[in-house]
């Protein structure tokens, strides 16, 4: 076993699946619900998507412990920003903040891959993902992360259409998530979907194969 493949196993320790999609004046972000320790499932209600503010959501895949640490640090930074600037952070700014924080730990990184989704100026949907050292990847359609990412890429590429309304977007992202995690033993046990429009946030739990 090479060193790099041994190190990579840390990303697969807890198991995760994350996907975000852009629709017409809305976005959706979805995750699986499994918390595992390698082959053993510990919980089926683990939270991977966090609200930063009403129009900004952060999903963190990879090692659960680092996801919790990073989430706490980012909430701290955003609250400070709110106190100083007297407004919420724009998604583009937040993405740059996450990227900078990850690169700070370049030679001892957080073992997480974030997915950031938000509504920017004029409520234009914004999604991006980055690797564990902060290399940003902006996309106009969808972004994926986690142990099921390869299946997710395939499912999203085939199911995605531009300018879907929030109902159709919910159906599409749910189908893409469920079909992908069903092929991955380390993620699944249901799904958690957030649909965000300029006026409201809808949170739904998906029932999938519980295995």
């Amino acid at each position, binding site marked *: 076993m090479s060193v790099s493949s041994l190190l990579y196993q840390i990303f697969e*320790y*807890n198991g995760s699946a994350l996907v975000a999609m852009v629709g017409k004046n809305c976005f959706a972000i979805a995750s699986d619900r499994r*918390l595992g*320790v390698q082959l*053993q499932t*510990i*919980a089926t209600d*683990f939270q991977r998507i966090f609200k930063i503010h009403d129009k900004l959501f952060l999903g963190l895949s990879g*090692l*659960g*412990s680092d996801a*919790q*640490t990073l989430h706490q640090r980012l909430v701290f930074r955003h609250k400070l920003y709110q106190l100083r600037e007297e407004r919420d952070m724009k998604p583009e700014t937040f993405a740059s903040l996450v990227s900078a924080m990850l690169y700070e730990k370049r030679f*001892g990184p957080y073992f997480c891959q974030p997915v950031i989704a938000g509504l920017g100026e004029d409520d234009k949907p914004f999604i991006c993902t980055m690797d564990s050292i902060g290399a940003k990847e902006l996309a106009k359609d969808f972004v994926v992360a986690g142990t099921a990412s390869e299946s997710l890429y395939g499912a999203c590429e085939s199911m995605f259409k531009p300018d879907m309304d929030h109902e159709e977007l919910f159906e599409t992202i749910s189908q893409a998530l469920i079909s992908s995690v069903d092929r991955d033993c380390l993620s699944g046990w249901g799904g958690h979907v957030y649909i965000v429009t300029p006026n409201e946030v809808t949170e739904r739990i998906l029932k999938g194969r519980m295995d």
Partner: protein
Amino acid sequence: MECVFGMVGKGFALVVADSSAVNSILVHKSNEDKIMVLDSHKLMGASGEAGDRAQFTEYVQKNVALYQYRNGIPLTTKAAANFMRGELATALRKNPYMVNIVLAGYDKETGPSLYFIDYIATLHKVDKAAFGYGSYFALSMMDRHYHPNMTVDEAVKLADQCIEEIRSRLVVAPQNFVIKIVDEDGAREHLWRRTTKD
């Protein structure tokens, strides 16, 4: 070969741990207490590296007490769990504590709660938790027989079933187990399950 497991019932939480202190093939003692009583209403069952376990549980216990002296009110179970996670996470990249924790507590406002804390500082609030080789048997047993709002008798019966399974199916099963309970009256030792006297 250490096992710790726990579950939440109606108005109480239970933590069960084995009581063997082992070094390679030698059993030093079979009445080692691995469930620390943190304060009046919290139990911290810990398994893992023996030195780290003793050090970390005592460190947490003293800090929980210090908070109460400084602020006049005790920490909630959730706050104590997050404090532990923070300490484990900070130490993780310097000098990690190889300790897995099941934290059970009772708060007047929120009732009983149980927290799973991994040695890499993964924190999750759960209804049932288990660590060690015994977890393969205990978790499966609890998945089958656990239901919310069990009485103390039902929970002890389930704990006994888990212990029975561990004793019969684990090749180097621990000899003795201790069961501790926390409810609105406080945290205390409840029962022992022995096969050897120490």
